[in-house]
């Protein structure tokens, strides 16, 4: 992910690139001995890094049937062999999403072309649904992950095009239009967006009004810079932290073990 917001940092100066920063930030959010619904790309790298750092028994679950893979090689597709490499079970999509629907999957990773203050995500269309300006791939598993996983983590590029007041299409439910809306709609109580990890910040959600809150800025990024790149009014936590930059250990494991063929980073 090359990003204009980071263009004024030279990788040689800070020692890591924006993708590496996202991966390390996301990896730290995953606890050991829990379950995570993993998609391809950054979530997979983050899960692999977490397994090799602090969460050796993080159970990686892949949509088309892989449960508990040891992420030694990176899958290029959500159904490929590495999604069930040395796994404990290989089943199918109904089993996996039903497992989430029964409440067994703690974390879920999401992405999209747009996110709004309530964490609703759009990956369906830009513009009008019937005459789309851009037809995007569609929900895929996004809607299922956002409906059933206890806590979802969105990984986003941070600018005003991606962080918008209203998404053009609610593909995947965040907190919909505010407190209680998920439960009213029939979604399982106690589920919903947990964090948004971006190249500029780590964000959470206000306990009462369910709007997005700035919790931490990425290294070298100011609060104002985050605000300027967000297309809606952001709640600023009383005590905004600065994220720790990727450690030497994290970067070494990421480069030498997680993605040694440099497929993604």
């Amino acid at each position: 992910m090359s990003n204009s917001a980071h263009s004024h940092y030279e990788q040689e100066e800070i020692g890591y690139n924006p993708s590496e920063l996202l991966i390390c930030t996301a990896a730290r959010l995953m606890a050991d001995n829990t379950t995570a619904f993993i998609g391809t790309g950054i979530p997979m790298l983050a899960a692999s890094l977490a397994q090799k750092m602090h969460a050796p028994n993080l159970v990686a679950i892949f949509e088309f049937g892989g449960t508990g893979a040891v992420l030694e090689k990176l899958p290029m597709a959500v159904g490929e062999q590495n999604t069930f490499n040395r796994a404990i079970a290989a089943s199918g999509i109904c089993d996996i999403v039903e497992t989430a629907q029964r409440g067994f999957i703690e974390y879920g990773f999401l992405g999209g072309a747009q996110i709004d203050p309530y964490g609703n995500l759009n990956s369906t269309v830009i513009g009008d649904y019937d005459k789309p300006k851009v037809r995007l791939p569609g929900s895929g598993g996004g809607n299922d992950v956002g409906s059933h996983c206890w806590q979802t983590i969105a990984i986003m590029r941070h600018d005003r095009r991606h962080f918008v007041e209203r998404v053009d299409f609610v593909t995947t439910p965040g907190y919909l239009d505010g407190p209680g809306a998920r439960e009213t709609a029939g979604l399982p109580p106690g589920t919903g967006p947990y964090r948004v990890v971006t190249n500029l910040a780590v964000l959470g959600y206000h306990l009462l009004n369910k709007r997005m809150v700035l919790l931490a800025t990425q290294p070298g990024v100011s609060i104002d810079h985050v605000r300027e790149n967000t297309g809606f009014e952001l709640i600023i936590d009383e005590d905004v932290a600065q994220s720790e930059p990727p450690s030497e250990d994290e970067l070494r494991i990421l480069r030498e073990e997680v993605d040694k063929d440099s497929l993604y980073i």
Partner: protein
Amino acid sequence: MNVIQSGVGELIQPPDMNAFREWNRKKPKALVDKRMTEAEAIKTFLRDGDYIGTELYGTVRCPMSLVNEIVRQGVKDLRVAGQGVLELDMLLGASLVKALDITYIGLEVYGVSNCLRREVESGRVEKVVDWSNAAIAWRFKAAAMGVPFIPVRSMLGTDTLKFSAAKVVECPFTGENICLLPALVLDVGLIHVHRADKYGNAQIDGISGFAAELARASKRLLISAEEIVDTEIIRVQPDRTIIPYYLVDAVVEAPFGSHPGEMCYKYIRDEEQIREWVDASKDPGTTGAYLDRYIYGVKDHQAYLDLVGRERLDGLRRGKHDVE
């Protein structure tokens, strides 16, 4: 049951479970040799306007040799359950799709599907109805169960539901809102497997995606297999049989049938050719040139494999990653 919300999307393939039962009753149960070529299978069982579905996923255990043959024969106005990468890209690239129940059509790590964009944004695909991944699989599951709908907790509260053909009702047991998905019965299902016998008993290694559900939701089912084995091989491990023969109409022997996608434990995907397609698909002219070279310009799957080349295929079997 009180209907609280009805999605505004068209129900492209309305369920008729009694008709499906009648169909299944008449389906031959005799053990007959169903082996044939891709060309025979598509010509015999697929018609313009049919509603079709493929399994698993365009780069993974995908029936590419069958899909290529659909393109070669130009079977058109297809209505398609859209969960795919390369296979649906081929059909879209050849402008053979009229309506889509879509969940995801994209190129995964390579981004948005250029063919999907062109076909949908131009209106050549006349109808698009969105669902989630599990929703499509569960719609097959409902058909496999022989019931007209299945209650689930996906899609609730979203535009995905609003523009689909799902309904929200008040659950008669809990009083909570629940989403009902209509069963989806396919005219023709296409599945690529690791091995099958000549009757159609089919086994899959590794994850099974939604093969069990799609197979049971298909009126006509075309199986391609990496290898055709003796029925005794099937009987050694009957627990691996995901698709029993009586569901199957055609059995096509197709080594490297998922190419340029992968087949777990047998060969990895062909990154070089996938990238060639990703680049070609950006422009209608180069899309056509790719289709000319790899589909229209070769007479069958064997000729396609010859074009790709034995050396390259052997490399994929050895698991060599052709990545710069």
